[in-house]
């Protein structure tokens, strides 16, 4: 304390001491002129830091209710938010306030809230991932629906969950690692949001020296947002590749080529050739939204009569789990298909990885066995996925399906039939 005695002692020791009082703190230091402001900053930081943050999380003697408090106490970098949508924006703003990058898994967040969150985060140098963000990988750690893949030279920006998972599946097949997937939510690249998070994500990936190629995959891209992002991308030293959802596989091949790798031949397991020739329409029962969009685009281009349904769309998931977690609704649809003589071919996706059903092939096996027309499956997964990729392939082929790793390749095979 700056008592008369202490100030006298400091003066005797050769310090220049201004006037003070016993209720003030006296801190004396010797420093080069140019280091003084840094010293003052350091003192300020030490005096103002929260003591709680020095405590390891395991020893927190109090389990906070609020996300903001938890982030502050643990100095977390990321806040994963999966509360009901109507509360998600507030939780995200608490995370932003506390200095963490929010990953908003919740859906049903308004455009207005999304826009405001992204603006507030940008002001503080933070990246908002979501809302409705299904897939994120940060330095190899998967959040939400993420496939297991070794770290590698690719950094992905995604506004499409299953689109990103298709990238992961094919990169893994090519032996190329992916270090980050920054999932931004399906609306980020629309002109309403204007790619606010995409711009931040581009800058962050550019700054990461381990990222050699940046991929962008988005379900929906607004024309002016695309223009601005392409402009930003052209100024980076890291190459940026757009992976179009009309043909993900083709885009992934280009992405790999820029990274100096090659996409090997696309694997196929089992065969639908033996099956009676389906003369009716193609029915696609999808759990992944982007995969459904891609299948629709390919079927349409080939002039094939197709009915592609995205069972993960909001209209089907109200009050029940997503088909990537639980196949109940898909099993009902497959049973209908097995009795419907106007169906000539069946196409479906099976998505693996963290967060997905622990054994989707086992759930689907019997229903597929009841179908006599050709069945094509795009199995979106990697060798490291917790479901065991080979066992999923075996169960699906035993049920009579022809299994592809690429959704484009599965769809093409199906439309030819």
């Amino acid at each position, binding site marked *: 304390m700056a008592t008369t005695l202490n100030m006298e002692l400091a003066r005797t020791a050769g310090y220049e001491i201004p006037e003070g009082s016993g209720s003030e703190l006296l801190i004396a230091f010797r420093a080069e002129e140019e280091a003084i402001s840094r010293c003052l900053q350091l003192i300020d930081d030490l005096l103002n830091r929260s003591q709680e943050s020095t405590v390891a999380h395991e020893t927190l003697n109090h389990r906070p209710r609020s996300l903001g408090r938890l982030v502050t106490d643990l100095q977390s970098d*990321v806040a994963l938010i999966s509360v009901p949508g109507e509360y998600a924006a507030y939780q995200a703003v608490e995370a932003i306030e506390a200095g963490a990058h929010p990953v908003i898994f919740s859906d049903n967040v308004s455009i207005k809230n999304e826009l405001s969150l992204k603006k507030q985060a940008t002001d503080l140098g933070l990246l908002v991932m979501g809302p409705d963000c299904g897939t994120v990988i940060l330095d190899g750690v998967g959040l939400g629906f993420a496939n297991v893949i070794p770290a590698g030279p690719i950094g992905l920006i995604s506004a499409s969950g299953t689109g990103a998972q298709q990238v992961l599946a094919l990169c893994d097949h090519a032996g190329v690692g992916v270090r980050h997937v920054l999932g931004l939510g399906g609306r980020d690249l629309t002109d309403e949001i204007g790619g606010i998070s995409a711009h931040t994500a581009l800058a962050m990936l550019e700054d990461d020296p381990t990222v050699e190629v940046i991929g962008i995959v988005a379900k929906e891209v607004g024309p002016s947002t695309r223009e601005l992002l392409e402009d930003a991308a052209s100024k980076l030293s890291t190459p940026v590749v757009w992976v179009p959802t009309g043909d993900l596989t083709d885009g992934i091949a280009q992405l790999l080529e820029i990274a100096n790798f090659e996409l090997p031949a696309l694997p196929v397991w089992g065969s639908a050739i033996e099956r009676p020739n389906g003369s009716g329409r193609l029915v696609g029962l999808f759990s992944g939204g982007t995969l459904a969009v891609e299948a629709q685009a390919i079927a349409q281009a080939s002039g094939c009569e197709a009915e592609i349904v995205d069972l993960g769309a909001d209209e089907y998931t109200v009050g029940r789990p997503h088909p990537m977690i639980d196949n109940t609704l898909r099993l009902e649809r497959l049973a209908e298909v097995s009795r419907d003589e106007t169906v000539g071919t069946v196409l479906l996706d099976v998505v693996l990885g963290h967060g997905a059903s622990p054994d989707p092939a086992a759930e689907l096996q019997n229903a597929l066995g009841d179908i006599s027309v050709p069945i094509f499956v795009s199995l979106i997964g990697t060798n490291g996925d917790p479901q065991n990729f080979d066992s999923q392939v075996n169960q699906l082929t035993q049920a009579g399906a022809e299994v592809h790793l690429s959704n484009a390749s599965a769809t093409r095979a199906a439309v030819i039939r």
Partner: protein
Amino acid sequence: MEQDGAGLLRNPKISAVGIQLLSDAIRDQGISIADATWQPPREGLALSLSRIAADQRRINANQQAVQAMIEARPEVVGVTTAHQALGLERRQFLHSGPPISWQNASGPLRGALVGALLLEGEAADADEAWRLCEANEIELLPCHSRGAVGPMAGVISASMSLYEVRDEVNQQVAYSNLNEGLGKVLRMGAYSPEVIDRLRWINSQLAPILSEAFARHGPFDVRALLAQSLQMGDEGHNRNRAGSALFLREMSASIAQCDVSSAEISQVFEFINGNEHFVLNMVMPAAKASADAARNIPGSTMVVAMARNGTEFGIQVSGAGDQWFTAPANTPEGILFPGFSNKDINPDIGDSTIMETYGIGGFAMVCAPAIVRFVGGSVELAHQKTHQMYEITLAENPHLQIASLDFRGTPTGIDVAKVVSTQILPAVNTGMAGKEAGIGQVGAGLVEPPMSCFEQALAVVAESGEST
């Protein structure tokens, strides 16, 4: 601001709220992740919370508000009177809490008003005073509306002496009357002759001596006093024993030099020594002067006043101007003086919750193990209370530190959004007044503010953000 992906893209530390399965999937990868124990609040609050989340003013507005309150350095500069400083006239009376009429006033407030009329010589006896009140011959105003605060009934009348507290940092000023001691006192609703005599002695003897002493001593730094007293077992609201002793210690030389008889000086020392809450009426206006600097910041959801009038609990919030958000006051629970029972306790009363608004009192319960019986009897519970308060506050006050929490700053700046989202109510310590006019204090304890005040305030600030 420049984006910094370093924390995000290298070995990120993750917190989560929501679906447990998602956190477990991360744990399965060998990564540690902490879950907040948040649960959705009752239905109907989501709209306000989403609006608040969309309000781009809020983060900065709240930082500005809480920093202004924290950086305030209130000092007692002297003693004045309510007539002189606030222009109070003979039949005008200030009271604690949000606005109220005589008809809705509780026993202790009525008793205090009767006493104040007697003190001012406006009535010859209690019956006449009562009749004047019934006939609406008096004007009632909240202390907060005139830059003042008063403990318990908080009745301030024209002739009463007031401490003047100034904060040079934010250019604020606030006032409170002089503390009368415990038991049969005006602020608890007592108005017997001994009560009125004591008030007359305060005005005629104590106030001039203190006034002279302050003039000699110079401005008295209240924040520095609180910083020390919190480390000496006070929480600054229900326990002011250390603070009162520190005040006397620092001021004794200046008081002793006053040009009055040694008997009169001895009487002052004795009075201060016999009153554990002597300093409360200085720390309260200090807290008010600090909180007032945080008023009227558009978009801020920070509480700038919590106060009770014995009938209603009310709060004011920075982003909602002078509007009060009120709900029926709860009845405190705690320890009663001998001879009283729970049915004697009046609903919550007093402006002293300005201390919790400022981040101490119930918020710093862990500082005052000597009075933990008020909060259920254990030091552990006091710890939990203080830890909970960090969940609903915006900052930690580096000037007021809690020794037993490794000198962590006190939880400061109540955010109505955080209160509503977590459903954690501010912890409030309080004295307990007798229900009937004329009784006085019956004990001390703890009280819960009504959640509805915070929900209403949140809705109004949220609404204001819609139009910006």
